């Protein structure tokens, strides 16, 4: 038995899903859609599955989240729908309920946050609601785990008995009533043939926003004209156009459902508290400084204190495990190559990637708190204006800022963006926010070539990255992502205390996600690099890296970089290793040049300020590291697109480095 869990954003859907399923969750993939849905088995019911569909406000065809919900319910025909509704905000939440009822699937209403309603002295007459809506209503509190068992029981019963919603007429006598019934009459047979719920098809015809559904009905010209005529007639009589008339009908019905059944005693505590918090957090003068302060604090704690501590701990664990293994292998007399595979390939490679894990977990701990408390929505509210010009909304600012720390969690953080278009654009832009692993490159090069202007060069690079990002965003707006962005009409939920369980589940999810990646794509990539740097072309193990396959590949591609001013094989080889981790660029350069006086000396001999600048621009913009690329592949749901990003960034980097090299040629040698 399968249930679809549907509800508005901020209705507590994820919390309920976690309560229903516990840890029995997996990511579901539906063919043809890129929006991810999770599903899981209900605790105590081995054969009852719940699919957590994206949080939406309405079923239209304007966003992928909405079409996923529509398609899942129409095509997969779940045995039942569990519709979660925020009882403190009942009118707007019921709007989606009415559209779900039209889909003619057994349905239960989970009236969430009833504890808040009660504690504010309000009441909701559950029986009256249930009678007026024609579906069972169960009061719950997902956060406090109240009423969940009853919800499961009622949902199971409703679905087993195939009890359809008893009411599906939301119109009161008048023009809209006549219009709906006239259209129903015309399309009845068509809807049956197309296996579409009649009322839903009728609504779609009136709203006219869903061509896919309308074409499935296979209406002939006469019928379409007839329908058009009834709509025009209705609009004339009603005084509102079709969309407004339908919305008006639904809200009027909702008002009649709530009238007498919902009693609000006083202004809710949660709202008053939120308004008070907002006096500070979205204050005209304090809001922006507070936002940057919060972000700085998160960065500091993640990259310098907690995350760093855990990272060092994990790293030393891996190191000691690695050295124990090495001693064991040596005493066992293992072949040198096999030993190198285990120590330099396996341990070093996966170890260096795994050391990201603490950073990711700690960062997501803070992010999920920002999200679950409701502060993330305020950030979007405060910062929206600054991102609007590049075609994004305020919501994208957080992933982008995280990009300055590490691209991997930044890309993973785009999951919270509510529109797929914004999500994709943000993913593509994040790598231009120079990540912290590139700092050693900048630092060493500045020290070697621009000792007097080191700080200026660093800041300049960061700004250059942002400018290129803005340029790319503007280009994307005019090509790939042309057309109307998803409107920025966003709810500002009341501030709430985050549920520890939801936070924990999210952290577990992200960690699992990343570990899976570490042992697949990243693992193979590190092994490949190990192989290429350990053997020469004839597959003989090499004495020094300079005769390895990697060095040969480096030498082979070196001419590509000649027009940029750094055509030597050592440089191109180090750029290749930078694909595994940006930190490797400098260390590889050090190994390959093996110049006396260290890498700084080597760089000042190999590079001129002009070619050094061009190299810095190239490393700033070229492909993100393998961990970031695999995160991008995952979030874009396509390996091909991930590879596209790599190619695109390398090409962009080359072009910009070339331009900089040429312009710099006018001023320096």
């Amino acid at each position, binding site marked *: 038995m399968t249930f679809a869990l549907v509800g508005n954003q901020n209705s507590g859907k994820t919390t309920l899903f976690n309560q229903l399923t516990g840890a029995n969750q997996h990511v579901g993939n539906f063919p043809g859609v890129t929006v991810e849905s999770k599903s899981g088995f209900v605790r105590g019911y081995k054969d009852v599955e719940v699919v957590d569909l994206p949080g939406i*406000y*309405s079923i*239209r065809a*304007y*966003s992928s989240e909405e079409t996923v919900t529509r398609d899942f319910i129409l095509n997969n025909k779940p045995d039942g729908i569990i519709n979660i509704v925020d009882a*403190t*905000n009942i*009118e*707007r939440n019921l*709007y989606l309920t009415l559209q779900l009822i039209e889909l003619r699937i057994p349905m239960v209403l989970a009236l969430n946050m009833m504890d808040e309603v009660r504690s504010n002295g309000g009441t909701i007459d559950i029986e009256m609601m249930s009678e007026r809506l024609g579906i069972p209503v169960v009061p719950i509190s997902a956060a406090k785990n109240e009423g969940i068992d009853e919800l499961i029981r009622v949902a199971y019963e409703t679905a087993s008995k195939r009890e359809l919603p008893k009411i599906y007429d939301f119109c009161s006598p008048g023009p809209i009533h006549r219009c709906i019934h006239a259209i129903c009459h015309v399309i009845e047979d068509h809807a049956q043939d197309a296996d579409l719920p009649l009322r839903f098809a009728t609504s779609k015809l009136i*709203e006219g*926003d869903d061509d896919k559904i309308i074409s499935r009905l296979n209406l002939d010209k006469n019928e379409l004209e007839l329908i058009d005529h009834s709509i025009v007639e209705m609009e004339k009589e009603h005084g*509102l156009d079709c*969309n*407004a008339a339908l*919305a*008006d009908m639904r*809200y009027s019905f909702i008002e009649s459902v709530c009238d007498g059944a919902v009693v*609000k005693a006083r202004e*809710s505590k949660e*709202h008053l508290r*939120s*308004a008070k918090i*907002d006096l500070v957090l*979205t*204050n*005209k*003068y304090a*809001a*922006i400084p507070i936002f940057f302060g919060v972000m700085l604090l998160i960065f500091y704690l993640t990259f310098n204190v907690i995350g760093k501590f855990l990272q060092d701990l994990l790293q030393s664990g891996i190191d000691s495990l690695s050295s124990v293994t090495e001693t064991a292998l040596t005493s066992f007399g293992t072949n040198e190559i096999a030993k190198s595979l285990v120590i330099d390939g396996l341990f070093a490679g996966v170890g260096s990637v795994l050391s990201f894990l603490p950073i990711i977990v700690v960062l997501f701990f803070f992010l999920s708190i920002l999200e679950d408390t409701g502060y993330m*929505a305020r950030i*979007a*509210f*405060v910062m*929206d*204006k*600054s991102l*609007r010009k590049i075609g994004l909304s305020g919501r994208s600012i957080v992933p982008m800022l995280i990009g300055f720390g590490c691209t991997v969690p930044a890309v993973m953080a785009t999951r919270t963006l509510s529109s797929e278009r914004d999500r994709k654009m943000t993913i593509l832009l994040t790598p231009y926010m120079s990540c912290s692993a590139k700092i050693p490159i900048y630092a060493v090069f500045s020290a070697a070539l621009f000792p007097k202007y080191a700080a200026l060069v660093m800041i300049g690079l960061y700004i250059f990255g942002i400018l290129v990002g803005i340029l790319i965003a503007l280009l994307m707006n005019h090509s790939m992502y042309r057309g*109307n962005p*998803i*409107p*920025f*009409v*966003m*709810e*500002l*939920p*009341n501030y709430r205390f985050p549920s520890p369980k939801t936070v924990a589940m999210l952290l577990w999810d992200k960690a699992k996600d990343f570990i899976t990646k570490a042992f697949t794509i990243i693992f193979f990539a590190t092994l490949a690099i190990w192989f290429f740097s350990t053997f020469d072309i004839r597959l003989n193990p090499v004495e020094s890296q300079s005769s390895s396959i990697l060095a040969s590949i480096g030498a082979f591609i070196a001419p590509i970089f000649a027009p940029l001013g750094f055509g030597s094989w050592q440089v191109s080889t180090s750029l290749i290793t930078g694909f595994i981790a940006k930190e490797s660029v400098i260390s590889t350069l050090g190994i390959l040049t093996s110049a006396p006086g260290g890498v700084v000396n080597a760089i000042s001999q190999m590079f001129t300020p002009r070619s050094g600048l061009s190299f810095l621009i190239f490393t700033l913009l070229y492909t993100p590291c393998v961990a970031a690329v695999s995160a991008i592949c995952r979030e874009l749901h396509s390996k091909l697109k991930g590879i596209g990003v790599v190619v695109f960034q390398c090409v962009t980097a080359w072009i910009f480095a070339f331009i900089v090299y040429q312009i710099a040629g006018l001023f320096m040698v």
Partner: protein
Amino acid sequence: MTLDKLSAGSVGVITAVGGEGALRCRLLDMGLIPRTKVKVVKTAPMGDPVEIRLRDYALTIRLADAALIKVRPLNGDGEEKEPVGGAAT
């Protein structure tokens, strides 16, 4: 008068919702339909978007989008204002 012109703290009743396509549908879906009472809570620090309150919840919309929504201003306690030829603020 349009919603973007309503000053922070004042209340209005929606009389018409303009715009088109996804934006208009989104506005209607969120409950911004004629006859609905809306209060402007505050403006974001950079002057845009605005926070509004309707049907017991808070929503943020951009000024350009708010300009598509026609409202009839009410005075503080929710009573109708004297009709003074649209000069009400």
